[in-house]
């Protein structure tokens, strides 16, 4: 899945939909995030949490995300490309992240 900037014709970055609207709960097991924009509650696995934490720092493209996670998890980018791409699609559908066209 690749979303392109309309003007620059390059892959868009991804960012958190609205950091101020996300509320968290974590007791050392799975992490729960509540999205104040949709009033939905989500249970995050480790990869989802890491993606959201990376995007909380700064907007990143899909390729940048894959590279960062590959370094973090000591795996190859090829191994992570498909699962991260699917995850980004799902997080976008849930309204937790959005394309950053700026």
């Amino acid at each position, binding site marked *: 899945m690749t979303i392109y900037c309309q003007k620059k014709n390059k892959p868009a970055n991804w960012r958190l939909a609205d*950091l101020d609207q996300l509320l968290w*709960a974590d007791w050392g*097991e799975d992490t*729960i995030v*509540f999205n104040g924009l949709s*009033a939905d509650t989500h*249970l995050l696995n480790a990869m989802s949490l890491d993606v*959201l*934490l990376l995007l909380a720092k700064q907007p990143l493209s899909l390729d940048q995300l894959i590279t960062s996670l590959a370094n973090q998890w000591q795996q190859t980018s090829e191994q992570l490309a498909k699962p991260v791409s699917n995850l980004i699609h799902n997080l976008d559908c849930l309204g937790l992240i959005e394309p950053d066209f700026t």
Partner: protein
Amino acid sequence: MKIADLTVMELQERLRTGLMYQIGPFKFQLTVKNCKTLVSQLHWLFAHYPTFSQPQLIDFSIQVKRPQLWRRWWRPQVEFRTDGEPGMAPFPLDHALPMLEWGSNWCIATHAHRYLMLHAAVVERNGQAILFPAWPGSGKSTLCAALSLSGWRMLSDEFGLLEPETGLLQPLPKLIPLKNTSIEVMKRFSPEAVIGPLFEKTRKGMVAHFRPPAASIERAEEKAHPRWVIFPRYKPGANNELILVEKSQALLRLANNAFNYKLLGVSGFQAARQLVDQCSCYELNFDNLRAVIPLLLSLYEQQPASQSAKSISRVVNETAG
């Protein structure tokens, strides 16, 4: 004054013009017309509820009456109205009490949004409460009724009313609708159980109402601290055991179990998170009340420590910064 202090004739007259009574934090004004059987059932089952004759600020004005015309003679029916508007489809006349109970639940579920309303039973002992969130068929009501006769104070059966500002549970000691086999179970459990008439072939099967003990109603203003969240599940052959539930899973289950969680938005999440944070969470698989009651008593006596939530919002915000 309690409803029991009225004679049946006085109650009938009050119901004709509008009986004001209180259950937990809610004041009702109930008008009943041409339903003599319901009057005597209310005199018995609502006996301990406080009633007022002076004008009061009413939360719910509800009416139970028979429809006009030919329905008076052919399969007679009864209607539930709230503020004059139909609340639900008519019921057979002899099911007026279950209709009143479900109708008043509907009023609360659609209006009482100052609380996070969990579909849960609540009992309390020395200020510490167990919340039993569960969907129908779990044995929640039977368990709640049995505990209320075993040294626990019943706060509520249908609604776990959680105050977001204080984190306290508000009592709402309504009648407990026992269904199908649980009616016999409770009759056998204790001769002290006050159980109303049997209503067969209702929309939820056979129903009879358990009257909350007088002490539960008299102490309906005493809120309680939630201490345990226990998800009960009646299952024949179960081991009658408590299984620890991860707090994140408990929070998700509560979010899916509330009447108005999404409606409350952020405050609903914060209230549910705080609730889980201060409680130990378990699943209870049971098939025997006699085994479960000492199990819950030993849990109460042990009072296991609760682990607080890490503030991940701080972690995320620091990361973002």
